[in-house]
């Protein structure tokens, strides 16, 4: 069978359709069905991952078919392909996404309101996420990308906390703002790129990555002599616009303010999906699309991109230090940790980009764990204020054990997954100065200060909330409510903790899949980028 990726995408859609047909009173069926479907997806993704490892280079599981073929009269024909494939960059993220969705499905037991709508949207979201990581046709990517927005909007807006409407609209508008401009660039690229086989315009991303496929006088062509906007090449603006779209998703400073609000309002499983998967689409998009299609702009702006990464790391860490709400603290720590991803990508070294991918997957697992742990507490006493708790280790020792694992993994204790990602993004950022001179060494050093502050806020929180003599805001009533973990909670937390340890001790599990792809990617981005930059500088004289 060669269309596993389609199965991965359409399995949840089929399940969603079946759920829609079920009557509302069959409310105890929805969650098991969703769990089974996402477990199946995880198993398929794991199978694909092991298959990929047998020959870890190039694109695998390619599916390609005509999808939309419209005659537009004077504009020519509109060709959109159904083009799916995965490589070392996406296969790990695909597996992570399937797994996080599985965990989120289990963690959805707290959802009581309108389960039919919830699980239908959940499955729709799952399909869209799978699609985003598999699509290699820009239009198809865009469709999946926008398709994620809708269920996410409702999941936050309908099942969220008291201020959910504000948060969900903020999330929606932020992302839409990015994607509208992405649409413009996408259309611009379509009219610039020619399929070398058929001679027609194409949305194929792989063709967009090759300078030879651009028609000579098009806006985004490298060989254009007049494609300037405010005295800078149009291609640079294309890059910036796409970068902003994905930077909102990651999110980086200063486009991050939707994230804390969304997290604070979202129910636990939605927070898990948001931090575990959706943020990674930003990092993935930057590597695959921004850097892939506009390598020269990536090189040209790498200093600024690296700087954004460093500022995100420090800024996120500082605000996490000052946060008084546990969930908000973890949301800001996410911003800090995703800053390492940006920094690693900007270094354009194999160590840095491999580290960035590792960091994304590790953060996916860890943020899932962290948000779930917050949910466990919130479910018991409906409070998340750090100051409301003290000495939680006493009534909830097992819970504290998992918190310690998650916190120490997040602050980069070796032997756990967070360390490898951070260490290699830093090694890459440091190496950049002597390999390609894109980032100054100071960036790596500043970023490492973020690790120090990371230790400070996690340990401070441990000290304030979990250790010391027990004292709770809700006094005796809370003592009764604060029971240790239930069976379901163990079921969620144990695999997550094991994966964190496994990845920390055997990082080859991920590096073996990504290394070849990333080595080639770094090489090509660098070669193409420099060649494009030279030709554009001589033709456009900017």
């Amino acid at each position: 069978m060669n269309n596993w990726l389609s199965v991965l995408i359409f399995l949840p859609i089929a399940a969603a359709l079946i759920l829609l047909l079920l009557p509302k009173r069959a409310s105890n069926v929805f969650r098991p069905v969703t769990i089974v479907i996402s477990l199946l997806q995880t198993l398929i993704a794991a199978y694909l991952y092991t298959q990929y490892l047998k020959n870890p280079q190039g694109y695998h599981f390619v599916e390609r078919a005509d999808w939309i073929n419209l005659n537009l009269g004077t504009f020519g024909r509109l060709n959109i392909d159904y083009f799916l494939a995965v490589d070392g960059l996406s296969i790990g993220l695909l597996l992570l996404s399937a797994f996080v969705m599985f965990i989120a499905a289990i963690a959805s037991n707290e959802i009581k309101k309108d389960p039919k709508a919830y699980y239908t949207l959940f499955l729709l979201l799952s399909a869209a996420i799978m699609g985003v990581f598999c699509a290699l046709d820009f239009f198809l990517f865009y469709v999946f990308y926008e398709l994620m927005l809708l269920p996410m909007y409702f999941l936050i807006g309908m099942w969220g906390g008291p201020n959910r409407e504000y948060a969900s609209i903020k999330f929606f508008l932020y992302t839409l703002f990015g994607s509208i401009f992405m649409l413009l660039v996408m259309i611009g690229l379509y009219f610039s790129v020619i399929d070398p086989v058929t001679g027609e315009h194409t949305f194929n991303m792989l063709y967009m990555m090759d300078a030879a496929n651009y028609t000579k006088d098009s806006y985004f062509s490298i060989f254009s002599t007049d494609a300037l906007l405010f005295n800078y090449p149009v291609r640079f603006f294309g890059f910036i616009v796409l970068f902003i779209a994905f930077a909102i998703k990651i999110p980086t400073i200063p486009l991050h303010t939707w994230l804390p609000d969304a997290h604070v309002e979202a129910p636990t499983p939605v927070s898990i999906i948001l931090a575990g998967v959706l943020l990674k689409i930003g990092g993935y998009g930057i590597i695959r699309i921004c850097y892939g299609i506009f390598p020269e702009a990536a090189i040209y702006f790498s200093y600024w991109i690296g700087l954004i990464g460093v500022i995100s790391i420090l800024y996120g860490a500082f605000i996490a230090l000052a946060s008084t709400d546990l969930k908000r603290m973890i949301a800001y720590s996410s911003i800090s940790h995703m800053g390492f991803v940006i920094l690693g990508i900007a270094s354009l070294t194999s160590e840095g980009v491999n580290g960035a991918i590792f960091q994304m997957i590790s953060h996916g697992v860890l943020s899932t764990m962290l948000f779930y742990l917050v949910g466990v507490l919130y479910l018991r006493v409906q409070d998340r204020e750090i100051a409301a708790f003290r000495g939680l280790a006493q009534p909830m020792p097992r819970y504290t054990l998992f918190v310690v694992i998650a916190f120490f993994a997040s602050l980069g204790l070796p032997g756990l997954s967070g360390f490898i990602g951070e260490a290699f993004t830093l090694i890459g950022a440091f190496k950049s100065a002597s390999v390609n001179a894109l980032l100054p060494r100071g960036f790596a050093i500043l970023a490492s200060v973020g690790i120090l502050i990371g230790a400070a806020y996690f340990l401070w929180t441990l000290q304030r909330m979990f250790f010391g003599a027990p004292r709770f805001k809700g006094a005796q009533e809370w003592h009764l409510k604060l029971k240790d973990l239930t069976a379901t909670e163990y079921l969620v937390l144990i695999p997550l903790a094991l994966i964190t340890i496994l990845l920390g001790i055997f990082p080859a599990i991920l590096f073996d899949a990504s290394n070849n792809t990333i080595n080639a990617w770094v090489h090509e981005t660098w070669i193409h980028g420099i060649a494009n930059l030279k030709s554009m500088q001589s033709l456009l004289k900017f």
Partner: protein
Amino acid sequence: MNQAITYQVDSLLQVLDFSAIGFLLPLLFFILFSFYRFSERIVFWSAIAAILASYGSLFYFLKPLVNPHQYYILDWFSIAQSKFQITLLIDDTCFLVLSMIHLVTLMVIIFSGYYMKAELRFEKYFAYILFFFTAMFGLVLSNNLFLTYIFWELVGFASYALIGFWRTKDSAILANKKAFIINRIGDLGFLAAICILFNQFQTLNIHSIEVMLQTSPKDLPALYLASFAIIIAVIAKSAQFPLHVWLPDAMEGPTPVSALIHAATMVIAGVYLLLRIAFFFPPEALLFLKYIAIISMVMASLFAIVQQDIKKILAYSTISQIGFMLFAISIGNQPFALFHLLTHAFFKAALFLTAGVFIHENKTQDIRNLTGAAKQQPIAFIAFSIAAAALIGLPFTAAYFSKEAILFSAIQQHGLDVFNILLLFSVLLTSIYIARIWFYLFAKKDSSNIPQAKSVAMNLPIVVLAMASLFAAFSASPFYLQAFWFTLGTETIAPMFSIGIILLSVAGVLAVKFIPAILLMDEKNAIVYFLKNGAFIDRFYAYLFVKPIQQIAALLKWLDKHIVDGIVNGIANFAIVIANFSDWFDRNIIDGLVNLIALFAKRMGDIIRITQTGRVQTYFLLALMLMAIVVWFIY
């Protein structure tokens, strides 16, 4: 180095015989104890069994591999074109340090059976100790800086867990947080060194770097930077000035933990690391190390003589003694730095464990209340006396060799320069602070006898460690080093020199005996107050770093909420205002215009309608008037 044998192994199975027993067995017990609650007896005996088995395998499997030393290399993962490998070096140094660690761990575990008896979470305590043991084991064997870094942080984590073992005790949970964060600063130094060296050599195997340096110039700027970065790591881990502040606080942990981690093993990791990689250090870095070492030694001994808390005195003593080892490295006397590391481990562990007995039996840590020990805990008192003699460096102890040799080589190299005068000064201070404790212990107790515990678990470890502090553990002769079970460089000490040092130390002891002010250390004295508070370095850091960082964080939080998010909300509000305005404009202007036109049409209609009377006479009149006007215009 070149005659070493290197094995490229496909899996650790090839060194499995000793790693399985030595490394994995304690790890297994750690996992078991962390998740399940066993009875105290099972936990205690299985922990002892694990360490004993490991100890046995050390002698049985590892000892034969030591000569010639060998490398075991296992591919771990690869990234870009570089391979990261698990590299183990098995040699004399590693064997000596490992056997010290095994002995001290074993004794501390036995002692903990007495000290931690009936403690809640008894099994967790042993789990953490075993975890620490495993991490320390790995740290000693590793010959790859990436791997070393991993264990370097893991021992720090074990230390965090054990300092804060009594997790409802506020001072303990503040101390372990502080220890971890300050060690993090050192870790960043280590990480920086890793970045620099990896960037330079594309490998982190210490042996490979060594080989590469044999054929390449040694004055690379990268090596300068890396050596300074490593020294920062060493300063934090080995509690040297200015990052020493965590160690006195770490004494909040259980006393056996202080003996094991914060005296004998973990804190010497910095010394051990330098023994492994100081070969590439340029003279400037060694000089920097010398400054750090001498400042730490003098400062810590000064702090030690004014303390009243027995554990704090010993903690400062550890800082000072590690400074002494680093001093030895900085003057190129690596073998005796290693030797002092070993002798110090035994006598300091003995000092801490005996202190543990006094604390446990008297329920206080204040030396002024620990009187009467000579009578009430005679075994512990004798053990303490032997260990104290070793700390001072009196003959018949093992530390006599290590201490005199380092002092002798220092003075032989540089004569009586400022460094060496300070060095001798700290030797004097050392005998003063330890004599203070001793005289209090020796003094008679006023109050009635408290019933004293007697158990093997209490006495066996302190006796064994006190014995290990004696010359016979290392040398056949008490007066000159005649090593019989390991090899060190040869260092001869002049007898006259030795007598001089002994006299200096005895002078210190006598000063305590005959000058009551030293014994008392009244806090009303400004200098005593200043030193007792650690020269206010802690408070200085609080104002210089901790407060500003919290303020920056609070400021950024405010900025984020009001400015960054304010702009976003501002844009949103602006859009709403525009929308409202458009709405008003649409309602009033656009629609107004439409209505106006309609109104105009209506008014026009109204006016015209006046003419539409339906009466023929009016129409006829109007027609006549129109014709008259037309005619009038024509003419």
